[in-house]
């Protein structure tokens, strides 16, 4: 599975410009689904199976977009001013490298700072693409770039600039390959524009009209020095989301997921995230409402160019997903 992970994390695909990663995923899932289509916003939707009498129509969503930057101005000396796509943090920018969709690479520089204690704002930064003037610039207003950093395999731990949420797409791809004989009509959605406000999942969910929804995304951890106060750690299994800033997970879905993990003897953690949100939020609010939850993969340094996950957590996420979806589902009031 590591080669699949490397392939998806190294592909460019900032929000709104997901066509390359979509093609990579499309070829990875070729032959595994009954039907594959791309909707109006660019979500890649793969259906597997039809709804049996004891089955449900289920939407699974992992977003294939990543955070990035977009050029706003090329100045007279060829420096590219930019703004962000999604939750890029200023602190991670200076010295970072970015790659535009047209192949141009650049490094992020900063105006001279009189006070080096303050983090500069994006408006004080620029991308140096190595040209001398505006006329020579292969970049123009509106060109989009993603952060560039090679995939790092530390053995147990894996690091990449886009674990959020390519690791979720890898989990979905792997689950799609492994699932066989599910009673459910499963829609694997590789969604777009999550990082700018769960926009892709919003329209995909409307189109699919699911009876149950599950997002597969990363979540933060509390296991780094003086880190976030949060009881989720790397290596202790997939996290079952109870809440985040955008959603209260359906308690019936939470208990179904917990029971499934226990039954399959897969380690799991309970996640309460005080910031952020996932595609599950969009699914939950679709049409007349949908029971929704989220399977989270613990991840350190989210939205930095070096996001880290635990390989065992990834494998267990696939196992848990396959176990959950192979059986009929009974949601019980809690």
């Amino acid at each position, binding site marked *: 599975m590591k080669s699949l992970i490397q392939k998806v994390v190294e592909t460019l695909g900032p*929000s*709104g*410009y997901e*066509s390359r990663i*979509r093609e990579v995923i499309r070829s990875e899932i070729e032959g595994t689904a009954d039907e594959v289509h*791309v*909707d*109006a*916003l*660019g*979500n890649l939707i793969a259906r597997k199976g039809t709804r049996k009498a004891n089955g449900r129509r289920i939407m699974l969503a992992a977003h294939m977009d990543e955070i990035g930057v*977009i*050029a*706003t*101005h090329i*100045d*007279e000396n060829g420096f590219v*001013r930019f*703004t962000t*796509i999604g939750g890029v943090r200023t602190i991670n920018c200076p010295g970072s490298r970015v790659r535009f969709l047209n192949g141009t690479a650049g490094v992020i520089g900063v105006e001279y700072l009189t006070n080096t204690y303050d983090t500069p704002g994006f*408006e004080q930064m620029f991308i140096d693409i190595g040209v001398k003037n505006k006329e020579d610039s292969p970049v*123009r*207003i*509106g060109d989009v770039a993603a952060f560039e950093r090679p995939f790092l395999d530390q053995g147990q731990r894996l690091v990449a600039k886009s674990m959020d949420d390519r690791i979720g797409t890898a989990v979905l791809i792997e689950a799609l390959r492994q699932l066989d004989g599910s009673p459910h009509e499963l829609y694997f959605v590789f969604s*777009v*524009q999550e990082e*700018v406000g769960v*926009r*892709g999942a*919003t*329209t*995909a969910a*409307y*189109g699919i009209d699911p009876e149950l929804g599950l997002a597969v995304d990363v979540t933060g951890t509390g296991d780094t020095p003086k880190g976030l106060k949060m009881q989720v750690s790397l290596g202790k299994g997939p996290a079952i989301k109870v809440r985040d800033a955008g959603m209260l997970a359906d308690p019936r879905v939470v208990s179904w997921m917990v029971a499934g993990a226990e039954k399959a003897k897969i380690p799991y953690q309970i996640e309460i995230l005080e910031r952020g949100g996932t595609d599950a939020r969009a699914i939950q609010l679709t049409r007349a409402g949908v029971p929704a939850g989220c399977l989270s993969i613990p991840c350190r340094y989210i939205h930095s160019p070096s996001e880290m996950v635990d390989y065992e957590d990834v494998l267990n996420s696939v196992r848990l997903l396959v176990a959950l979806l192979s059986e009929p589902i009974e949601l019980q009031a809690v």
Partner: protein
Amino acid sequence: MTQNAALKALKAPRVGAAQLKLLERLTNACSVSGDEGEVRGIVLEEVRPHADEVRIDHLGNVLAMKSGSGKKALRVMLAAHMDEIGFMLTHNEDQDDGIFRFEAVGGVHIAYLPGKPVLVGKEHVPGVIGAKAVHLTTPDERRNALTIDSLRIDVGPGNSGKVKVGDRAAFATQFSRVGPSLRAKALDDRLGVATLIELIKNVPPNIELRAAFTVQEEVGLRGAKVAAYTLEPELAIALDSTPANDMPAWDDTENTRYNTRLGSGPAIYLADAATLSDPRLARHLEETAAHYGIPYQLRQPGGGGTDAGMIHKQRAGIPSISVSVPGRYLHTPVSLARLSDWENTLALLYVALVRLTPDILQADR
């Protein structure tokens, strides 16, 4: 054939005396978000003779359908918002003196309020937003910006009975032409409304036009949400007005954050805070402009949002983009736009519609 001749051959609508007169009527009308009746009246009067069907929905949007004569027409939604920023009276502070507290409706630029005239209520009762005489202010006071809490709308002694708490107020600036420019309040988005009216009057045969004159854009794109759900288009274009911050910097260094520039043509959106434009539509607009020699500019990606922000998320997703006429000082009493930018916006939109085929949606985004 020259590019100009090519444009002429397509019979693109132009901005003439009648269109300017209409824009004048539209900008002088008062339609603060939630109270769009006055502009709605003008819109209905203008589009009813031309549309196949016109209706007003539950929020007050005007929805106008007009099909081109061609077969396999593409269902296109065009949206322009009728509402403008303004005020609502919240408290009558002095029964005899005509002095009212008020709150802003939409993103009013507060620094532009003191010393400006307003029109209150449906009867356009004149009033002013005064400011304490400079002679009576302390140096400390002058160091602080005036807040909306410290300002009042004054309709004058003896006029309290003509207005009431809950009435809306709009800026009182009257439309004027200034050299190559247009000067008025609410150019955001009466320019879009005027453009859309012209397009309804000139629908190309290959288009099944679903026009939405929306309400409550300035308070959260609320009208567009329900309009797009109802109209179910195959693609959508929001027609709006976007800031031109193309003034010099204080130290004469290069202004790298101008958003758009006056006189550089229609602004095509690639990304704002609410929408990542459909690249297929962006490409189509750019190619069209280049092909016909219509000047255009790419709006600097960044904040802000248009009706497209709601439209593209409706139902199973609607490929969307925005095109704006650039305007300086939007959300103030006096906005300024270039006539040539409006003309080029109208031309670009018309020609882009003429060249639009269902093929555009065949390729994946």
